[in-house]
């Protein structure tokens, strides 16, 4: 057990930290709405890209730095610590690219990876459907073969960045006869066609981070299938496996910063004594999240696969963020209930944490079944 960074890891961190200190993003636009904000994040990705910092975890052959897992975690920690935004094309960088590296043909890699990295082509994810929820096997979007193309019809939901995206990682049912998770295929769907309509999905915060996709006979050529017809389930799992690995470290640091802000606020308002117990408990949780995240990384490095920590970290993080932002209402006062203030945004946004990226209920099921080996409940309809 050694919880210090190696000289190489320290050098990586120092280089990045120095670069971030010298290369702040442009000032965050105060108006222009979500479009202006997105343009700002795209500009920021371009700066990262130009300096070789857009996706350090990608192999050098694809334009990354071949960063180790630890270095990759450091990358997200530092991005969070510097309070700079994520690169605009986060789904392409974290999910789409890595999925192609595993399942893509040489032609696909050559065609798609460079514009993901530079941010020229934004990617979004079309997995969830209104009636499917956590149940990927019950997807209803259909893909029907028509010559060298597939014709796709259906509805997707929770697709973030769809309005800015060129490509959608789409899982659709290509064989309605096959068993539930066997008839799925993973497509790259061109978003620039009239058959695809994007409708923003407004959240309780008032903003629209996500969208609904209405797909009415969209056309996708054979060449845009990833991993082969009928193999969509497996390919999608690769994407999902990548989902939380790096982001966890950024979220963890963000939580840390929020807690530090809250402690400072409590000190300022003379409330450290009164809320000391609650703040200390949040501190224990934050530290535990950090430690469990690093432990998960060690497991991957040693055994090639993550331990139970992934689901535990997500669960503990989301629960802790909700407690923290709720406590903030008591400490910060009116400001935390005033529309447009950052504390009130955090309070509302935190409610999504236990739903997005696997609800807490689903995470508990996963822990019970896959980690503890408890029997799966068979239900009769």
């Amino acid at each position, binding site marked *: 057990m050694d919880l210090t960074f190696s000289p190489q890891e320290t050098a990586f961190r120092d280089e990045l930290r120095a670069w971030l200190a010298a290369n702040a993003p442009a000032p965050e636009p105060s108006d222009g709405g979500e479009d202006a904000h997105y343009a700002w994040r795209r500009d920021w990705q371009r700066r990262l890209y130009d300096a070789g910092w857009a996706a350090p975890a990608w192999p050098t052959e694809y334009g990354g730095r071949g960063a180790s897992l630890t270095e990759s975690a450091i990358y997200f920690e530092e991005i969070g610590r510097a309070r700079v935004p994520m690169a605009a094309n986060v789904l392409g960088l974290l999910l789409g690219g890595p999925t192609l590296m595993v399942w893509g043909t040489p032609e696909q890699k050559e065609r798609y990876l460079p514009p993901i990295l530079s941010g020229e082509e934004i990617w979004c994810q079309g997995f*969830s459907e209104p*009636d499917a*929820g*956590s*149940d990927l096997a*019950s997807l209803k979007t259909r893909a029907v073969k028509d010559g060298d193309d597939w014709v796709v019809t259906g509805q997707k*939901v*929770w697709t973030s960045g769809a309005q800015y995206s060129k490509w959608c990682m789409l899982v659709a049912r290509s064989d309605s006869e096959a068993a539930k998770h066997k008839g799925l295929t993973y497509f790259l769907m061109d978003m620039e066609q009239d058959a695809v309509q994007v409708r923003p*999905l*407004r*959240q*309780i915060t*008032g903003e629209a981070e996500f969208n609904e996709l209405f797909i009415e006979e969209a056309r996708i050529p054979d060449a845009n299938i990833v991993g082969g017809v009928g193999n969509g389930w497996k390919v999608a799992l690769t994407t999902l496996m990548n989902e939380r690995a790096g982001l966890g470290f950024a979220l963890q640091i963000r939580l840390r910063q929020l807690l530090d802000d809250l402690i400072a606020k409590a000190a300022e308002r003379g409330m450290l004594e*009164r809320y000391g117990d609650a703040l200390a408990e949040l501190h224990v949780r934050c530290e535990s999240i950090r430690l469990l995240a690093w432990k998960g990384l060690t497991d991957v490095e040693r055994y090639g696969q993550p331990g139970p920590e992934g689901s535990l970290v997500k669960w503990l993080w989301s629960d802790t963020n*909700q407690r923290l932002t*709720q406590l903030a*209402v*008591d400490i910060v*006062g*009116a*400001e935390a*209930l*005033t*529309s*447009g203030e950052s504390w*009130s945004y955090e*309070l*509302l946004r935190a*409610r*999504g944490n*236990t*739903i*997005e990226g696997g*609800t*807490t*209920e689903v995470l*508990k099921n996963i822990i019970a079944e896959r980690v503890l080996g408890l029997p799966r409940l068979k*239900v009769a*309809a």
Partner: protein
Amino acid sequence: MDFGFTDDQRDIQRTARDLLSERAKPERVREHAESGRSDSELWRELCELGWPGIAVSEEYGGQGLGRIELSILCEELGRSLAPVPFLASVLAATVIEHSASEAARERWLPGIASGETLGALGVAVDGTAELVVGGAEAQVIVLVEDDGTGRVLAAEEAEVEKIASIDPTRTAARVSAGDGGEALDGDVAAGVDRALVAVSSELVGVCDRALEMTVAYVKERKQFGVPVGAYQAVSHRCAQMLLETEKARSTAAFAAWTADADPERLAEAAAMAKAAASDAGREVTASAIQAHGGIGFTWEADVHWLYKRAQLDAVLLGGAGSQRARLAGILADRVRASAAA
């Protein structure tokens, strides 16, 4: 010993629920919330029915009914989230009636009882209240301090800065008293305790509605071919929501009863009610969002209005922590008294 409503009280409850389910449908509430406007048409109707004056005594133009009747209306309005300035106005009336001078009572209460005058009540520190619900449209504002003093002010006597709170079904403001208005010289605590009961009852209504919406949703929504409400993760969550709601409801009912029938226990009962209701409000409405899954996080699902209302009500006139601190003081006094006896 009888824990139920009288026939008259049940009539009030049924009438209110019927009216609001007709006149304050979710679409209408959302429409007003989104535009940040009060529902003046509905308010006029409620005023005609005498709601704002239900607990104001007849000598000031009210109906002179009790705190239980007021709690019934608060609960129903909490259920519906009707965008009307009812709660803020009755909170102000309560404190004015219990602790303002006769002149101030005569000046303000008839207008509040008829609905022509709007009131608001805030807790201030050194003359400033950071968040006064209803403060932006009130003509009369009551500010009370933690030390038991207070002032009643005409709006123009105060510095009123409008705030957009996260709950746009009501207005809010930051209010500073300066030297304006008139000091309260009666039993401020007795008024505030009754106000706490009214807020608690609104929270009970919010919880009740959140549970009702959730139960309806989880019976319909299916996952893996089964209604999600059949899974214990969901069904036991709903049971927990009921427990919290009933804990809040029972203590609020007790507090409303003591206000008229056993005022010596009111301070304790009001603190209990607000502590239970504030916790329940936060937890039950958060649970409602969670049980709705992804849909619950969307604007269109409407559960978030309940969550936002609960967040404001939970801190209104002091949150659960402050109420428990008061209670701890009462318990400490009691144990000292019994040790001395």
